[in-house]
């Protein structure tokens, strides 16, 4: 069979297999099955090479652990996974000068197990992946909270306890960085800006499958003895840890690469693929959140990647970056880690604020209060977040004279954060509030974040920080911001956007049970832990003062019930999507967002004609507001004519031809 140029290029979806053949058997071609096969082959090869290279090393003979083979196995396993899925097909074809085939529309549930270039499919794949991450790490939390039921009798013992705590923290942090950007960023951003897809769809798909690979890599840690360092993996514990630390370092590197690609794609897409008329001042606030988060992902994560890479070298090539005795410094890791680690807090916070910003306006039927302040606040938070990492080192490795500076700029960041918070409050003020499920989650997010934010301001002060450093107070603080903030916003958005994504509403009764259980038991779990921490209980210990048993047992029982709330959610999801699916009405929340104006289901390329954006989507409660967009098109010609792009410049000032673009005086995106 003669191959066309496009067929040769291949994308993992195309290659030699024709559309008709694929229609007959959707499992033909590359999918997670070939991905797993590739991962197994890569892992075995890496392990073999590692044994050939390093089995005679003195350190390997002495310890019985070959870190080289573990690291090579995990790294080549990841490459094999991507190769099996088809991530490299196009890259290889490019060497011969071929360009990719155009993505065909695929149907059937099998597409969710393949590498696809449809941003809507990728968004849904990401949703399942982040939920898998979240629930796995959550189960670890249930186990170690059980250990903390009693300071006397032990359920799992100190070693397993520390391994579980470390796995839980690491997985949650990995997951939370992509919790919103992955599913909602990829699904919604092109729809919200009037684009037909992401700028680099292959990178988008690769970022997803790297995320999944990171999940598998970090879960290999217990096989290699786990790691007892907590999610921060401070040196020298890192250098001395068992083989599970290799899974941590490689896993963070793999997830980090995916985060970089995802952020990169968001920025390029938002900057360049906005529809005609989509000025910066008309961007939905969620898109502003994705843009600022994108910059944090692309600029902070490379430093984590370098930190993990140097750690791998210390453990395999016997360098001494973090080994004080050989000219290295354990503080080097702390600095590299927190240079990423603190912006990461805002990588997790900003998307949550973006989501609730969208929901608050819809359910209070009011324009977003002080829209420009919200966008400016997000930019301010993103900028300042690069200058505060040293507050994590107040107790270690910092020149004491530097403390006031970092205390001050940490406090400064609460100002733009406060702007964003007050924008939410201003939007609610005198609104016609509808207490729907997404709105309830949004309001709960503001309640929780207030506690998380205020305790954060206290923690930025050196005297308080010194007092409660490394205690459960810190732990409860960041759970209030991340789980209380981001995770609540995420679940609110799941209830809000499921009708758009799947065409089905989630069951409201089960949803309300989920909400109330999650809200009440989240607070009953973590508020006592604030007190426990203030009373002096340190983190990452499996035994504690007997006088704290009451509060700990209370928190543990509440945590079980918190876990149960997610069982309700999963049951609701399965019930509403597969067992008793109820078709959702079109635009059930009466939103003005462009993403809700599209037909059900959203067409493969989103828009038949590029929409002409006429206003921002927040003109709720106004009499006869301007439509958000004109979907008949006409904007491209007007934008090109206004921008003087030949030969379309001949139409400048001729609205009768460039119908209906005479509305716009500003082409929006510069062309």
């Amino acid at each position, binding site marked *: 069979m003669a191959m066309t140029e496009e067929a040769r290029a291949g994308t993992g979806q195309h290659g030699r297999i024709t559309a008709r053949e694929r229609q007959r058997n959707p499992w033909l071609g590359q999918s997670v099955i070939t991905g797993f096969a590739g991962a197994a082959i890569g892992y075995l090869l890496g392990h073999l090479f590692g044994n050939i290279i390093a089995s005679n090393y003195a350190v390997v003979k002495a310890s019985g652990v070959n870190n080289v083979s573990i690291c090579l196995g995990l790294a080549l396993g990841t490459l094999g996974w991507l190769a099996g899925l088809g991530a490299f097909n196009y890259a290889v074809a490019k060497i011969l000068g071929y360009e990719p085939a155009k993505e065909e529309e695929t149907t059937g549930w099998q597409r969710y197990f393949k590498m696809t270039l449809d941003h809507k499919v990728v968004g849904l794949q990401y949703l399942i992946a982040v939920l898998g991450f979240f629930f796995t790490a959550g189960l670890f939390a249930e186990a170690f909270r059980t250990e903390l039921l009693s300071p006397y009798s032990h359920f799992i013992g100190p070693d397993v306890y520390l391994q579980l705590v470390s796995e839980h923290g690491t997985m949650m942090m990995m997951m939370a960085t992509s919790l919103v950007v992955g599913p909602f960023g990829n699904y919604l951003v092109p729809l919200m800006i009037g684009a037909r897809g992401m700028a680099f769809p292959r990178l988008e798909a690769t970022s997803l499958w790297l995320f999944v690979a990171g999940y598998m890599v970090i879960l290999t840690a217990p096989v290699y003895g786990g790691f007892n360092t907590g999610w921060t993996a401070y040196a020298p514990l890192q250098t001395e840890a068992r083989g599970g630390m290799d899974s941590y370092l490689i896993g963070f590197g793999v997830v980090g690469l995916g985060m970089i690609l995802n952020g990169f794609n968001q920025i390029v897409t938002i900057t360049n693929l906005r529809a005609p008329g989509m000025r910066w001042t008309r961007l939905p606030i969620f898109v502003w959140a994705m843009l600022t988060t994108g910059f944090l992902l692309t600029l902070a994560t490379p430093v984590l990647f370098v930190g993990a890479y140097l750690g791998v070298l210390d453990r395999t090539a016997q360098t001494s970056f973090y080994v004080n005795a050989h000219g290295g410094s354990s503080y080097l890791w702390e600095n590299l880690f927190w240079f990423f680690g603190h912006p990461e807090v805002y990588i997790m916070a900003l998307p949550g604020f973006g989501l609730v910003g969208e929901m608050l306006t819809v359910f209070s039927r009011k324009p977003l209060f002080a829209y420009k302040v919200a966008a400016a606040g997000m930019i301010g938070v993103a900028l300042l977040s690069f200058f505060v990492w040293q507050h994590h080192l107040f107790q270690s490795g910092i020149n004491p004279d530097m403390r006031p500076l970092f205390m001050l700029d940490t406090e400064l960041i609460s100002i733009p954060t406060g702007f964003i918070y007050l924008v939410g409050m201003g939007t609610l003020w005198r609104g016609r509030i509808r207490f729907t499920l997404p709105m309830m989650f949004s309001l709960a997010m503001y309640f929780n974040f207030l506690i998380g934010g205020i305790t954060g301001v206290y923690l930025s002060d050196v005297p308080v920080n010194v007092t409660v450093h490394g205690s459960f107070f810190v732990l409860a603080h960041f759970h209030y911001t991340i789980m209380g903030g981001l995770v609540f916003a995420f679940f609110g958005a799941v209830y809000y956007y499921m009708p758009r994504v799947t065409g089905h509403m989630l069951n409201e009764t089960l949803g309300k049970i989920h909400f109330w259980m999650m809200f009440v038991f989240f607070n009953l779990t973590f508020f006592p832990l604030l007190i426990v921490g203030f009373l002096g209980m340190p983190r990452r210990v499996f035994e504690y003062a007997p006088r704290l048993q009451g509060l700990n047992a209370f928190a543990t029982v509440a945590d079980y019930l918190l876990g149960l709330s997610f069982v309700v959610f999963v049951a609701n999801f399965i019930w509403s999507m597969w067992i008793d699916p109820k078709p959702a009405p079109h635009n059930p929340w009466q939103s003005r967002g462009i993403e809700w104006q599209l037909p059900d289901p959203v067409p493969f390329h989103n828009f038949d004609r590029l929409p002409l954006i006429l206003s921002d989507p927040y003109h709720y409660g106004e009499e006869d507001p301007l439509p958000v967009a004109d979907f008949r098109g006409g904007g491209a010609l007007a934008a*090109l004519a206004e921008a003087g792009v030949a030969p379309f410049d001949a139409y400048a000032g001729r609205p009768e031809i460039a119908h209906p673009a005479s509305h716009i005086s500003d082409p929006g995106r510069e062309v």
Partner: protein
Amino acid sequence: MAVDPQMMDPEALEAEAEAEYDLLGVEGSFWTATRLLIGIVTFVWAGVAFAYFYLRESDTHALWRPHGVTPPTLLGTLIALCVVAGAAVAVYGKYTLLDGRQVDWGFAAWLTTALGLVAAGLQIWELTRLSFLPGLSGYTSVFIGYAPLNVAFILGGTYWMETTVARAMRLRGRLATTGGAGASPLPDARLLRANVDGVTYFWVYMALIVATFWALFYVL
């Protein structure tokens, strides 16, 4: 554009305008992506440079750099020269392409590709010629950390250049009648030029990086 838009019906005109608008978006995406990629890579190198200066200033146990420890200077200098020469040739090639001399550009691009491969090969070879163990000191650790990253980014730039010139060769016939890759208004040619601009920019950036680290490791 092949057809005079003044002669089109409004539907076809709008479709043509949308195609142009989309194409401008893709060209813009290349521009943004290149600059952003450089930003990302800069933060990777900044991490390495931070390690260099942090360990140098800390000088833990006076083990930053024992006397006489240095990687092979000749090899290191050759690597840097290859990358700088590759960048210079890439810049020259870009301007010849815009001048309409596609053959000259093709030669320059292949030469840059070859120089990239040589530089990466020399960097790998240098790692086998070291007279010190990786964990001897802070300096030796940073050098061992730097070298594989240097190989990776040089190979990345080389791959980008090779795929661009391979694409140009495949398009040569198609673009010949419309002014060639340097002047053709066809979308393929415009995207190729955007790619050439991006890869040239990246090579110049890499030359600056390699020169900077050459100074850190071999001069300071």
